[in-house]
């Protein structure tokens, strides 16, 4: 396959559509959160959709993925059910985790989304273990681990990558470096001059890095890595520069509270992965205005219906609170 073939293979319209879905969902949550009916913490990914959308399109439904606290867009991009995710955030019995988990604990095994959890770094070894199992089964599946820039400060990250390299596991680590952990900039957490991907390369893993606002770049980078993984070249780590537009947890903007500058936010917003990509596809005649309008309508309908489903769904019965402490799976 030549470079241009690879270019040709980029699912441009899907990238755009996917980003639109993710953006619309996050922004509608932000809009409606103050109603007080989504009674759990929410960590929104508005501004970071470029990475999720592209990685989601690189992965196959049979590939597996795990994530952390900021998982909405990973979940959706991997194919997770939007209505069931929203119902989960509303605490409903129809939620993907039947109301037990909320926004931070999402799952949809039918599409390979094996779970997101709330402890920073907690799923990095879990995703690595998925890779171990895949390798033993001998398929060409990939296990994808989504992680933030703070995760590489947790020891368990190094332990996991070391093992993945040692055993050449089919794992793709996707680091979204959005410069912050809650309100803490990188400067108080990692030394000056640190490039995360360089540090991680020291463990002996293949790495790549670049602009997370460019979904095509993310797509081709991850595609290359994933092809290598499927071909048995072992794990890979990719780092993408990105930015979270809204507050760390909750629906608001918080550039005024003192930990970052409005100007920084505006500079990133200027490079919005969604609108810039839409312009680019329009300019290059990859999509037409009408097609964009149709996409927007389809997305609006999907999001509307997901909210309608979540709101209409019943709360779980109180007596189910004690269910599922243990697996129902019959002992074999």
């Amino acid at each position, binding site marked *: 396959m030549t470079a241009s073939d690879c270019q040709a293979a980029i699912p441009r319209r899907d990238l755009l559509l996917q980003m639109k879905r993710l953006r619309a969902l996050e922004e509608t949550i932000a809009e409606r959160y103050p109603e007080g009916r989504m009674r759990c913490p929410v960590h929104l990914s508005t501004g970071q959709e470029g990475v999720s959308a592209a990685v989601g399109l690189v992965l196959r439904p049979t590939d597996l993925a795990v994530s952390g606290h900021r998982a909405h867009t990973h979940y959706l991009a991997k194919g997770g059910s939007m209505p069931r995710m929203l119902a989960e955030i509303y605490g409903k019995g129809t939620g993907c985790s039947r109301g037990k988990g909320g926004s931070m604990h999402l799952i949809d095994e039918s599409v390979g989304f094996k779970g997101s959890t709330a402890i920073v770094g907690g799923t990095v070894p879990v995703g690595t273990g998925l890779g171990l199992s895949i390798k033993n089964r001998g398929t060409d599946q990939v296990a994808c681990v989504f992680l933030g820039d703070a995760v590489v400060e947790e020891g368990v990250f190094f332990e996991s990558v070391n093992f993945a390299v040692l055993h050449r596991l089919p794992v793709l680590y996707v680091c979204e470096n959005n410069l912050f952990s809650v309100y803490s900039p990188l400067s*108080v957490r990692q030394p000056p001059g640190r490039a995360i991907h360089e540090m991680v390369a020291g463990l002996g893993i293949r790495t790549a890095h670049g602009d997370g606002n460019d979904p095509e770049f993310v797509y081709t980078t991850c595609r290359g890595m994933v092809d290598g993984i499927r071909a048995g070249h072992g794990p890979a780590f990719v780092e993408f520069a990105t930015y979270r537009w809204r507050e760390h947890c909750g629906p608001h903007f918080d550039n005024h509270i003192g930990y970052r500058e409005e100007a920084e936010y505006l500079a990133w917003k200027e490079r919005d992965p969604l609108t810039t990509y839409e312009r680019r596809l329009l300019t290059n005649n990859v999509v037409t205005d009408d097609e964009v309008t149709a996409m927007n309508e389809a997305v609006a309908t999907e999001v509307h219906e997901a909210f309608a489903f979540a709101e209409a769904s019943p709360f779980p019965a109180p007596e189910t609170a004690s269910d599922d402490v243990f697996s129902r799976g019959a002992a074999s």
Partner: protein
Amino acid sequence: MSRHLSYAQAINEATMIAMERDPRMLCFGLGMDDPKRIFGTTDGLVEAFGRHRVFDMPTSEAGMTGIAIGASLDGTRCLMTHQRLDFFLLALDQLVNNAAKWQYMFGGQSSPVRLVIRLILGRGWGQGPTHSQSLQSWFAHVPGLKVVMPSFPGDAKGLLLSGAFDDNPVVFLEHRWLHNLQGPVPEGDHRVPLGKAAVLAEGRDVTIVSMSYMTIEALHAVQFLRESGVSADLIDLRSISPLDWDTVLTSVRKTGRLLAIDTSHAMCSVASEIVATAAIECFPQLKAAPQRLTVPDHPSPTSPALAEHFYPRAENIVAAVAGLLDRRLDPSPLVAARTSPHDVPGDWFKGPF
């Protein structure tokens, strides 16, 4: 002199005083100096003491705990804070294998480990399974640790100051639902001794032993009981380890009836320990089977519909006491009087965490 402050302000004031008294003491934790200042508990610290003494840290709970231990062994007191206890599970090796044992395993030949670890216990607004654990029984099981769970602003201040100037590792467990609680707080270097419970009410009929936020629920229950003609000793443990057995057992011997309340699961809990010790030590005086009240044996669910019945409240305490006394008591007025939703401590709590 004593003014009214919030629990968060009391913690803040204690920290200020400790940092002033010991010019080498350090204060760190994730978000230590961020705009939210750990629910206001660290307001003004970095401004007063500078970035060398008050700082944010990498997301490295285990490493930073060991670093705190090391610094303290060189004479630098450390106060470390974690926004949820749940995150601190990453650091238990350092806490248990190092901090708790350091004195003992070196036969007292070491410098002291002067370290206070503040851990916040989450509850409500969908905190869910990984943001609401309450592991005081784990800490209490380990020799060499001191463990406190203050319920009121004054005790929060006094225990934090005593902890800061103790020569041993102290685990300071603070409940998220208490941060906005107002109460009298003595000025200055006010100390509350580690290992001493507070008797909040005196009665003849039953001993209620409680801790942390559950003491607030117990106070409502005791008031209701009093109005219903039942008089209770209410003991607020304040310290979990060392535990003030004198106060607890003296009361149980007097009343012959015990209800132990806990913020965690029953199995191997502090409530179990209190019931067990009372059964062992006060058997001849017991008039009825002792009881305990804990959260059920499953993690905290996220959905408000499921969390509603997870946490025992004043009415459950009243019901348990009714059982102990074999009396009928109808706690429904307690429930009816409540105004804010069950998943927030009050209107001040705006979520999301």
